[in-house]
Every structure is written in structure tokens, then in C-alpha cells.
């Protein structure tokens, strides 16, 4: 089997903000190449990897989406050699002061996010959290150098270096959702040596953090019979409510709610029990917050299932996962696909 830790280090060290996924896509292509029959890129930049099934044509197909885009920042003005910034994706501005970043200008520039000192803020902004509009990036260069190297619209990635503990946990930025990309890679690795009737479309989607645009358009284009979202979910830790989080190292989650088809939920739940893969149920009463929200309503509508990998401190540069949860998520999806037969879609009904 592939070594997940080196792959994950490589994946989360590559830039690839929403809309700018070209930094990470080649790494995923390289990882998927041995396990797929063909690789292509959608018009918005999502990576499509096809693993052909053994069934007679036309074969049903399943699309597994793991988004490859990352949250981050973008330069929206330059003032006296400092960069003003805007966020791409949902970021709690309270994690930004003092954060190390890489500015993707005419060359890569290391920088640091700094708050305007209270003494220089408008009086009404001096108490409380410094709003994004008064945070700056300092790249340590003289103003003339900055204007030559940076322009409005340049993206900014977090530069927090990843680290692991005992080869069991991994901490760093963008584990949302490169951890799921690794799980999908692991899934493809398993399926490569296990016969499966269905065609499998592994899709590393773009722009999940902004519009779900990648998943929506790829689902339209590939027109699969079923969709799976592989994403991260909230890991238990003291600052988050216990009823909405899932412990690290105790297996993936399976979404339950209007986005998830009940028959798929039941099938996977039973499968996990049979295989003794620990699996928590994650209720999502309205939205799943994943690519499935878009894939569900692509074209005529597609049955969806959502698999989550627990992760602490989501959307901060210090996200944390346990590797075992990644392999379990990948294995669960692979085993589900192996047992899909030509008649599965006929069984997929509503038990009303």
C-alpha cells in the first residue's frame, strides 16, 4: 500500500487556494497515475481519475469527490509596503495575527500577518478583535521592492510547517481537505487490486470552500449514478461543543440528513459493522457543508453519501488528524464499491 504520511506532507505543503488549485493538482495526478486508467481535468480544473469497472457496458459509475482547494488569503491593496488582505473561504480572523504566510507574487515571498497596533487604529476598532481590514502582511521588504513583486489579486497561503507525533497524528494547514484526498488515494490503491463491477470516478474537486463549483460541474459532466463526498469533520477538543464533534482516532463519520440517501446510509452502516470499521453517525439536518450539497442537485439529482474524517481546529493553520482515521475512511469507501453490483441501483429505493 502507498505510504500515506509522505504523501500527506507533500499534499499539504503544496499551495492550491480555491480557484488556484494548479499548485497541488500535479501531485495528486502523480499519486493517482498508477491506480487509474485515465486522468483528465475538467474545465474548472477538477482532476478526474477513472478506474474502469468489470461490468458490461454501459456500466453504472460512482463519483468520489474530495476537494483539493484550500482556504487562504488574497492581496487586495498595497499600502506603504504592507499588503492589505481579504479571505478566501471561511476564516476566523482571530487566528491570523502573527501567522506566517507565503505570498505568491512574482516570486514566493515569506511574510507574516500583523495587526495594526491599537494606537494606530480608529478609536472604535481599538477594543476587541482587530478586523480583517486592519490586518496587514509584512514581507520585510522595502516598499519599492514590494510594489515590484506583488500585485492586487496575488494569493497568500499559510506557511505553518506540518509535523507529526509518533507517525500517528499529523498537524498542519490544509488537512481540510488534503487528508480526504489522501483517503481517496488510499481507496484507489485498494480498488486497483480488487475487482469491481462499477466504474469509479475519483475527483479532486476545486472551489469547494467558495461555491462548491468544482463538484457541481464535475457531477454534471460525469453524470455518475452515485456520489460520495470524502471530507473532514469536526474533531473533539475542549473548545468545541461535544455534541457536534467526533473523537480523533475512533474512525470516520457517516453523514445522516437530507443530503444523504437513506438506503446508502443503511448499506454503508451495515458494511462498516460487518468489517468492524468504527463509524460514527454525523447528523446534518440541513446542509452537509460538503461537495454533496452541490452534487445532490446536479442535473436530474444524484444520491449522495458523506464520509467525514475527524479533524481538530478546522480552518486554522494547525489542523490535526489521526492517520488511522484516513485509512479507515479510504477502506470503507473501497469496500462499499467492491460490493456494488449491476443491480444495486434497482435496490436503491425509498422505504416509505
Amino acid at each position, binding site marked *: 500500500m502507498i505510504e500515506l504520511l509522505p504523501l500527506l506532507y507533500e499534499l499539504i505543503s503544496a499551495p492550491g487556494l480555491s480557484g488556484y488549485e*494548479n499548485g497541488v493538482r500535479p501531485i495528486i495526478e502523480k499519486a493517482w497515475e498508477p491506480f487509474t486508467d485515465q486522468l483528465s481535468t475538467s*474545465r474548472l480544473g477538477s482532476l478526474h481519475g477513472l478506474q474502469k469497472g468489470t461490468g458490461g457496458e454501459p456500466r453504472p459509475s460512482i463519483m468520489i469527490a474530495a476537494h483539493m482547494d484550500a482556504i487562504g488569503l488574497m492581496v487586495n491593496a498595497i499600502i506603504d509596503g504592507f499588503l492589505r488582505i*481579504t479571505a*478566501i473561504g471561511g476564516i476566523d480572523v482571530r487566528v491570523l495575527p502573527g501567522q506566517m504566510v507565503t505570498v505568491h507574487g512574482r516570486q514566493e515571498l515569506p511574510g507574516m500577518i500583523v495587526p495594526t497596533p491599537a494606537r494606530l487604529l480608529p478609536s472604535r476598532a481599538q477594543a476587541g478583535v482587530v478586523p480583517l481590514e486592519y490586518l496587514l502582511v509584512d514581507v520585510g521588504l522595502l516598499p519599492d521592492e514590494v510594489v515590484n513583486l506583488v*500585485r492586487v*489579486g496575488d494569493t497568500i497561503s499559510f506557511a505553518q510547517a506540518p509535523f507529526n507525533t509518533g507517525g500517528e497524528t499529523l498537524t498542519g494547514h490544509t488537512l481540510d481537505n488534503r487528508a480526504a484526498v489522501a483517503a481517496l488515494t488510499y481507496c484507489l490503491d485498494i480498488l486497483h487490486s480488487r475487482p469491481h463491477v462499477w466504474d469509479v470516478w475519483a475527483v479532486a474537486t476545486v472551489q469547494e470552500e467558495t461555491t462548491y463549483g468544482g463538484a457541481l460541474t*464535475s457531477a454534471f459532466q460525469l453524470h455518475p449514478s452515485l456520489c460520495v463526498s470524502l471530507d473532514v469533520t469536526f474533531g473533539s477538543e475542549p473548545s468545541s461543543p461535544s455534541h457536534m464533534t467526533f473523537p480523533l482516532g475512533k474512525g470516520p463519520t457517516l453523514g445522516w440528513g437530507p443530503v444523504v440517501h437513506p438506503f446508502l446510509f443503511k448499506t454503508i452502516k451495515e458494511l462498516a459493522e460487518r468489517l468492524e470499521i468504527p463509524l460514527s453517525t454525523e447528523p446534518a439536518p440541513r446542509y452537509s457543508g460538503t461537495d454533496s450539497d452541490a452534487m445532490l442537485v446536479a442535473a436530474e439529482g444524484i444520491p449522495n453519501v458523506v464520509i467525514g474524517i475527524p479533524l481538530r481546529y478546522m480552518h486554522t493553520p494547525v489542523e490535526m488528524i489521526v492517520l488511522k482515521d484516513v485509512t479507515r475512511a479510504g477502506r470503507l469507501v473501497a469496500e462499499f464499491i467492491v460490493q456494488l453490483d449491476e443491480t444495486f441501483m434497482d435496490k436503491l429505493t425509498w422505504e416509505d
Partner: protein
Amino acid sequence: MKPLIQKLVETQGPSGYETQIRSVVRAEVEPYANELKVDALGNLIVRKGEGGTDGMKIMLAAHIDEIGVMVTQVDENGFVRFTTLGGVRPYTCVGGRVRFLSGAAGVISMEPLDDLSRVPTFEQLYIDMGYSNSAETPVRVGDVATFDRPFLDLGNRLVAKSLDDRIGVAVLIETLRQIKDTPHQLYFVFSTQEEVGVRGATTAAFGIDPDLGLAVDVTGTGDTPRRTKVRMDVSLGKGPAIKVRDGGMLADRRVVDWMVKGAEKLALPYQMEILEGGSTDARAMQLTRAGIPAGCLSIPCRYVHSPSEMVDFTDVQNAVTLLIELVSHPVIL
């Protein structure tokens, strides 16, 4: 080009009620069209060029609708309460005049305020049409009106209502008129219902199924007093703006680069645009069907969504020059 702009901005076309403006635009573009149609949502779609081996199907969109108001109640004394069509702000309403599609007019005023330091809410505003009872007042629930303000030519700066997005419409018309040769099938879409959620462009894009999409719309600026309050580097007169992102989309980076290269080839001034809120027809194009590379060429505009929006005429002319350059050659993304 100024007479065209004046004609466009002085025509009415609130979202969903674009008949008048569509017929004005239609008269302007019909002589230049290889094909012309109006779809179910009222989009006016004009094709120019037959395409070829190096060509693409390119959708160019500028919306013909404008923000406006819609009557919710006419009270017994003839005062008219209203709701908004699109992003109207209460502080630009008071003292303003509106004109209904029937030609009837009125002024907007407000109830006495308890707190003069606070902006009134729409519930505190009403239209006075000069009548004393509901029976005489010549409007009823559901009637729509636009802000009534004449075109103002300040030389290089132009002021009017609905420059958002009649200036984009003017740019497209002028491009259509001037373009000589194109390897592409160019679909000029004069779209509807942009201000209420890019609805017209959504169906137009699905119908056309283009390879590439470009909206031409206005964007805000950061060049007015207390400039540090606005995190925006766009100014009037520094060239058309190339959208990198707005509130609804990240422009396709390849489309951004295509426009930057085009502007640099012609040595035209240009600016990079990041708009914190709002979106354009480009969003609808980006997400249509299997997705397409989409972007937006923006005309910097002060006081967007007020009855006195302001653009720089040189920026407008440069936008036309750039657009013609962009669509006259094969596109390599």
C-alpha cells in the same frame, strides 16, 4: 458613444421588466447580428461570427436590467409603500424621484424619524405621487418603477442612474459595431434579472453552452474620501478593471491572465479588481453545466446602486478597445 450611453441610461428596465430597454438595445444591435433571439427569461442573445477551427464559442454578457422599486401598498391617502428590486439602499432614496413604467412619477420621502442619527428603514419610506386617496393614485400593488435622474455629462466623467450596467451594455454594443473579424462565435448576451441573482445569465449560459464566458459589468472603487476605509485599489480613470474575485466567484485565473496579456499587448492601462461583495453574470457562466472558464471585465464606477453612478469615459473607451482585441484573435488559455 456618449449619445448611445445617454439613450441607454435614460431608458427604463427594472429587473424582470426589461421590455423597453431590450427594444432599444435590439434596435442598436440588429444590423450587426448574424443571429438574434430572445429567450424565455427575456435575454437578448446576438450572435456575431461563424466560428472556425481556431475559434471558440464565447459568451459576452452585460445585463440590461437595473435596480428599482415595486409597490406593496397604496394607502387611503394615496401614499405608496414599496419594496426593492435589487440592491437599493434607503439612504439614496430620500428626496429622490421615481418613474413607473406607465410614465407616472413620484417622490420618495420618509416618516418623521425618532433618531436622526440612524438611516431610515424602507418601512419608514414612501412614495408621494401627488394624489390624496388610493383611488386616484395611478399605481397598484406590483407596479414597478426606476429612479428618475437625467444623464449628466461632466466631460470625461459621466453620471447617471443605471450605469450599472448600461455602461457594460454600451461597451458590448460598441464592440459589436466595431469588430471586424473574429475566429469565434461571439454570443453577445444582453441579460435580464442580474440584480436579483444573475438569473438571466444562468439560463442564457445553459442555452448557449459556451466554451468561455466574460461579463462586462461595473465595479466599485476605493478612490473617494476616507479611502483607507475601503480595501479596494480600484480608481476611476486608471483603466478598466480585471476581476480577480468578488463576493460570488473567483474569476478563472486563465481568463484573468488572458485579459492582462491583452491589455499589456496594447499598452492599455488596467487594474486588478477585488470586490468584497456582490457578483456578476460571470458567476452564472462559471457554474453552468460542466463549468466554463469565466471572468469579468469591469468598468470602475463610483456610487454604484445610487441614482448618480459615475464612470470615467476613458476607462469605457479603453474597455471597448481591450474587448475588441481579446475577441478578435484565437484564445489560448
